[in-house]
């Protein structure tokens, strides 16, 4: 086939896709001013941190355990200044660099953890919800019990156990700890949705036509259920960052030699506070707040648009045109 150097006209399939995309984003575009502002603010913040994470190597002035530049030692607990915009820590590390590298660490761990949680929780939920039976009952019992338990406690215990074992502390431990904490959530959400979809007439029809369970799940149930996942995953990512920071604060997260971790930095800063040194704790803390806020705004925005109960149409203003007087008969 000759190469197409001119743009092809949209095929019917392409047009359908475009229309579907338009329809899908319509709620966001039609949403009231407040919801939209919040959503886009969240996107901007999140993208900012993603950029920090991806380009850390180019943006951060120093490394995350760098305590000197050449022969020049950085000050210990130095005030924010021209060379160190956010000051230095008690280890002479540059606060700002640790924050930038920290973005990379946080996002890296959270993405891994959530991916694993999804990889485990979603299939389990699908299978359990679709097939039911003993497997379902047992899983539900276990997951519900775990679900009622605070994420932090689950994560701490897992991290504690793993760090005393051969895996040791670090990225993988933290990621696994977070994964275990969130698997029940995804399992639950997916399972509940599968159960409600399972009874839908179109799934029934597919079964009546003799489709195998695997096909039914793959073609009908999966896509329907997966739609619910993005808002949950985004809000979950926000929560996961908090969880990771909390682990770091308690000393069970990333060690300082492996990367910057905001929670850990705050824990070091607690003792600084008594001497009135604020920059070692304030900036990492603000970073946490900002990133989590950004993610939450995006997640809430998605939620508000997908959840029709909360959607608010905009009404237009209009005026009544004067009626041409026409009815003289029959008027009193």
């Amino acid at each position, binding site marked *: 086939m000759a190469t197409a150097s001119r743009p092809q006209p949209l095929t019917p399939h392409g047009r359908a896709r475009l229309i579907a995309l338009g329809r899908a984003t319509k709620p966001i575009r039609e949403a009231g001013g407040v919801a939209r502002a919040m959503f886009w603010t969240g996107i901007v913040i999140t993208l900012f941190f993603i950029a920090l994470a991806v380009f850390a190597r180019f943006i951060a002035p120093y490394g995350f355990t760098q305590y000197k530049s050449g022969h020049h030692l950085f000050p210990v607990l130095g005030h924010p200044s021209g060379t160190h915009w956010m000051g230095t820590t008690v280890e002479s590390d540059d606060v700002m660099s640790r924050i930038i590298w920290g973005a990379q660490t946080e996002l890296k761990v959270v993405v891994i953890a959530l991916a694993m949680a999804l990889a485990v929780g979603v299939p389990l939920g699908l299978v359990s919800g679709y097939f039911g039976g003993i497997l379902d009952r047992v899983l539900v019992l276990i997951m519900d019990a775990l679900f009622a338990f605070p994420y932090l406690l689950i994560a701490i215990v897992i991290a504690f156990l793993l760090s005393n074992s051969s895996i040791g502390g670090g990225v993988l431990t933290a990621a696994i700890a977070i994964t275990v904490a969130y698997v029940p959530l995804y399992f639950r959400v997916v399972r509940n949705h599968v159960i409600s979809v399972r009874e839908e007439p179109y799934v029934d029809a597919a079964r009546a036509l003799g489709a195998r369970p695997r096909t039914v799940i793959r073609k009908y149930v999966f896509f329907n259920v997966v739609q619910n996942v993005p808002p949950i995953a985004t809000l979950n990512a926000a929560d996961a960052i908090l969880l990771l920071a909390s682990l770091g604060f308690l000393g069970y997260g990333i060690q300082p030699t492996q990367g910057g971790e905001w929670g850990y930095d705050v824990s070091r800063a607690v003792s600084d506070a008594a001497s009135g040194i604020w920059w070692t704790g304030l900036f990492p803390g603000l970073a946490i707040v900002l990133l989590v806020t950004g993610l939450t705004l995006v997640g809430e925005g998605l939620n508000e648009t997908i959840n029709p109960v909360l959607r608010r149409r905009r*009404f237009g203003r*209009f005026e009544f045109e004067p009626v041409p007087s026409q*009815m003289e008969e*029959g008027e009193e």
Partner: protein
Amino acid sequence: MSDALLQVRNLRVYYGTPGKPVRAVDGVTLDIGESEVIGLVGESGCGKSTLGRGILGLLPAGARADGAVLYNGKNLVALPPRTVRRMRGPDLGLIFQEPMTRLNPLMRISDHFKETLEQHEPNLTDAEMRRRSLETLGRMGIPPTRFKQYPHEFSGGMRQRIMIALALVLRPKLLVADEPTTSLDVIVEGQILALLADLKNNFGTALLLITHNLGIVAESCDRMAVMYAGRIAEEGPVREVFANPAHPYTRELLRSTISLDTKVLHSIPGAPPNLIDPPAGCRFNPRCPSAMVVCNQLEPREQHPSPGQRVFCWLRGPSELIPPGGEAPLEREAIGVADEA
């Protein structure tokens, strides 16, 4: 005419949209007399619910009304909302279609009544309130032993009766019933309708019965109005309208009802028009089997084919207002199956 209880004059109710407004009610004039039972029929989306709510001033956000609803010499459309609110209960009442969800699930029935009475007649004693509530409920067939129960302990039919009793406990002059029996089964429907039809005997209340079911209207109403696309097509005594329908739409509606004699299912082709950009002239012209050229150009005038009967149709004249050539049949494209709702 001037002794009518409620007079609607050229009422318009539009809903705001990001674009042009939806003209749900577009110029309705109607009289409701004391103790009269008027049926308001039409297809879904013709504006009858909006009209009912518009009379009481219970419009949703984004909707506005224009025109006059005259009651006791005052125009309800022009009054401040607080004043109209005070009239809901003692003067005007409204009962809804879905009785299952219309009662607060956390409040007992007695609390509902107490609240309503306290709101409008705060000087009544508790004993007096209780007496009146029980009396009205009794007339609706709800025994006093159930007075303190919660809504979920009642069936749909009983909840509707409770709603009616709640609406009537203050003896309003006019009750608007918006499809009160649509969600109830046939037997319960009969009971509720009997109650409603009897209002004028027991309470002296006028009733505006909004429904899409012609059978109900035939049974229970004195007069009836047929609405189409936000306007009244025809209005008159029930007997007259059923016997000699003056508007083609009414005729088609009557032909579509099913009885034991029905051999072939009859339906009106096409779908109700878009209320943002309604058709020019008579709104029924795209689907009317007898449409003429003028029907697409000028809006029909009110005509009186018989005493007490009103109709808006060029077939009834006045012929002097029809431009030359206007009486020729209207050429239209065939209505495709895809156009039907």
